[in-house]
C-alpha cells in the first residue's frame, strides 16, 4: 500500500512537471485547474473537516488578488496613477521588477488574508450552521461591492495587473504561471496532507460532529476553528494572487470577489468529490473543470443555467460526493473494518 502511494505521487509529480511541454496548448487551463484544486482543498479544511460551510472564502481569494497586484505595482510605481490611466502603457516593469514584485506580492497576498481571517475569526466563527453560511456569504458580497467603490484599486473600471515582461519566448508567460500554480498546488497538498495526519484534524472532526461535546471534553474549539480558517485563508490568498496575474485584469465583482463563480465553484468542487476527504476535492475539482470547460466552450451563454442545474442535482442526489459513494461501496479500501455477517444481513434486509 505504502509503495503504491509513492508511485502514485511520483507519477502525478512527473506528469505535473512535464504537462506544459506535453500539452502546450492547455497551459492556461492546467494552471486554472491547479488553482481550482487549491481552492477546493482549502475550502474542504473548514467546510468538510470542520463542518463550517463557508460561502465567504472568496473574500481571501479576492483580497489576495488585489493585494498581490497592488504590491507588484506599488513597489515601483504610484498605484493611483497606474489604475487611473490603465498604467501598463506608461509604466513598464523590467523583468527583475516584475519577478521581485510578484514574489513580494504573493508573500503579502498569503499573509494579509491570513491575518484578516485571524482577526475576524473570533467574531464570525462563533456563529453556527446557517447563520455562519449566510454571514460569510454576506462578507464575500460586501467585499466585492465595497472594493468596487474604492478608487485607488480601480473601482468599477478594474485594475490591470502588470503584464508579463517581454522575454522573446512566447511560451514563457504560460510556463511561468503554470509552474507557479503547480508549485502552490503541491505546497497546499503537502501542507493539507500533513495537517490531516495530526491531532489537529481529529479536533476539527470533533468540532464537526458535535461542537458542544468537543468543548466539554476540554478542547478549546475556538482556537482550532480560527487556526483552521487561517490555513484556508493562507492558501486561498496565494491562489488569488496567482490567478490575478494569470487573468491579467482584476474586476471587483467579476474576477476577484466573484461569489457567483469561484465562490460557488469551490464549494461545489469539494462536494462533488466528497467533502471531508483528502482526495475528494482534488478529484472533484478535476471533474468539475473538465465539465465546466466543455460547457463553457460548447454551450456559451447557457453556462450559468447548466451551473444552476448542476448545483441542484449534485446537492440533492449526490451530497456525499464521489468519495462518499465509493466509500459506501468499498468500505474496505478506506480502512474501515467490515463485519461480513453484518453486511450480509443488511443485504438480506434490502
Amino acid at each position, binding site marked *: 500500500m505504502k509503495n503504491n502511494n509513492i508511485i502514485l505521487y511520483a507519477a502525478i509529480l512527473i506528469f505535473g512537471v512535464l504537462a506544459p511541454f506535453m500539452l502546450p496548448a492547455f497551459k492556461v487551463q492546467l494552471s486554472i485547474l491547479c488553482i481550482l484544486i487549491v481552492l477546493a482543498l482549502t475550502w474542504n479544511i473548514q467546510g468538510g473537516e470542520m463542518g463550517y460551510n463557508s460561502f465567504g472564502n472568496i473574500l481571501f481569494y479576492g483580497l489576495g488578488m488585489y493585494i498581490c497586484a497592488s504590491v507588484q505595482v506599488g513597489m515601483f510605481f504610484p498605484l493611483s496613477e497606474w489604475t487611473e490611466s490603465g498604467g501598463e502603457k506608461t509604466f513598464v516593469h523590467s523583468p527583475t521588477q516584475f519577478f521581485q514584485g510578484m514574489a513580494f506580492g504573493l508573500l503579502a497576498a498569503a499573509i494579509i488574508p491570513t491575518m484578516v481571517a485571524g482577526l475576524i475569526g473570533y467574531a464570525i466563527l462563533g456563529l453556527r450552521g446557517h*447563520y455562519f*453560511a*449566510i454571514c460569510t456569504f454576506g462578507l464575500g458580497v460586501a467585499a466585492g461591492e465595497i472594493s468596487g467603490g474604492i478608487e485607488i484599486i480601480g473601482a468599477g473600471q478594474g485594475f490591470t495587473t502588470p503584464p508579463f515582461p517581454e522575454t522573446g519566448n512566447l511560451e514563457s508567460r504560460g510556463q511561468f504561471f503554470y509552474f507557479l500554480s503547480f508549485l502552490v498546488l503541491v505546497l497546499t497538498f503537502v501542507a493539507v496532507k500533513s495537517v490531516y495526519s495530526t491531532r489537529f484534524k481529529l479536533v476539527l472532526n470533533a468540532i464537526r460532529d458535535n461542537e458542544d461535546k468537543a468543548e466539554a471534553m476540554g478542547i478549546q474549539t475556538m482556537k482550532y476553528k480560527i487556526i483552521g480558517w487561517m490555513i484556508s485563508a493562507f492558501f486561498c490568498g496565494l491562489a488569488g494572487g496567482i490567478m490575478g496575474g494569470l487573468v491579467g485584469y482584476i474586476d471587483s465583482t467579476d474576477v476577484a470577489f466573484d461569489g457567483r463563480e469561484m465562490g460557488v465553484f469551490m464549494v461545489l468542487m469539494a462536494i462533488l468529490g466528497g467533502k471531508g476527504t483528502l482526495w475528494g476535492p482534488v478529484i472533484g475539482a478535476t471533474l468539475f473543470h473538465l465539465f465546466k470547460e466543455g460547457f463553457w466552450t460548447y454551450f456559451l451563454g447557457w453556462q450559468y*443555467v447548466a*451551473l444552476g442545474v*448542476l*448545483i*441542484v442535482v449534485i446537492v440533492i442526489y449526490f451530497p456525499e460526493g464521489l468519495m462518499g459513494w465509493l466509500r459506501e461501496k468499498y468500505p474496505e479500501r478506506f480502512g474501515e473494518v467490515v463485519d461480513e455477517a453484518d453486511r450480509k444481513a443488511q443485504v438480506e434486509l434490502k
Partner: protein
Amino acid sequence: MDLLIFQVPILMVQASLDGILLGILFALIAYGMALQWGVMNIINIAQGDLVILGGYIAYFMYLSGIHPALGVIVAPVIMYFVGVGLYKLVINKVVDRDLFISILATFGISILFMQLMNFAFGADVVLANSEFGTTMLFNNSVTLPNSKLFSAIISIIFAIGLVVYMKKSKLGRAIRATAQNARAAKILGVDTEKVYAATFGINAALCGVAGALVAITFTIHPYMGLPYTIRSFMIVIIAGLGNLPGVAVSGMGLGVFEEFADYILGTEFRIGSVFLLLVLILVYRRFKLSKKREYLK
C-alpha cells in the same frame, strides 16, 4: 463621504420617508421568508429572484398596455403556481435535510432563475411606469412619488390579509400546526406535504406582489434579486421568527438605514453597506447570545 444630508436637514425627512415606504415593502418579502423558514426550516436564497420574477410579470402587463398596478393581483396568482412547482421539483427533496443542503440547493435555483430571466427578458434595467404622479410636501422640498405610497398601502393590505388568513382559515391553522410540530401535525391528520407546498406557494405569491410593487416603484433587472434575499433574511433575524410587528419595524428601520447610507456613503456603497450590516448584525447577535451562554455556565 458626503455630508450634504447634515447641512440640509430637509433631506433627512426625505430619506426617512423614502426609507419607511421602502421598508414596508421589504417587510412584506421578509414576512414570506419568515413564514417558510418557520414552517419548513428552509432559507430560500432564491427569494429575491422570485421577487424579480414577479416584477417582470407586472412589467409585461405594462408592455402589453394593461396598467401595471393590476400586477399585484395577477403576479401572486402566477407566482403561487411557480412556487408550488418549485416545491414539487426541488424543495420537497431538501426539506428534511441538512440546512446547508437547502441553502446550496436554493442558491442553485437562484443562479438558474437569474440566468433564465436574463435570457428571456434581456439584461436591461426596466421599470413599469404606473403614471401615478408625484406629491410635493413641505413647500415642494420633499417629493413623494404616489407609486411608493401605493406600494406601501398594498403591502400593508396583503400582510394584514395574510395574518387574518393564517389565523382563521383551515389551511392557515394547518400551516401553524405544522410549524409548531410537523410530526404531531402529521399524526393528527394534517397532510404536511400539502402544507409545505402551500407554504412555499404562499411565500412565492407574496414575493410576486412585492415584485410587482418593486417594478412599479423602482427598477428591476435579472441580477438584482440577491440583495432582496439578504434584506429579508436580515429583517427576519433582527425581528426573530414569528414576530410579525418586529418584522414590520425592522423592515422600516432597514429601509431608513439604506436611504441614509445612500446619502452619506454614496450610491455605489449602498448594496455593500446592506451586506456589511448583515455581517455586523450577525456578529452582534453572536456576542449577545454567547453572553447568555456564559450566564448559564
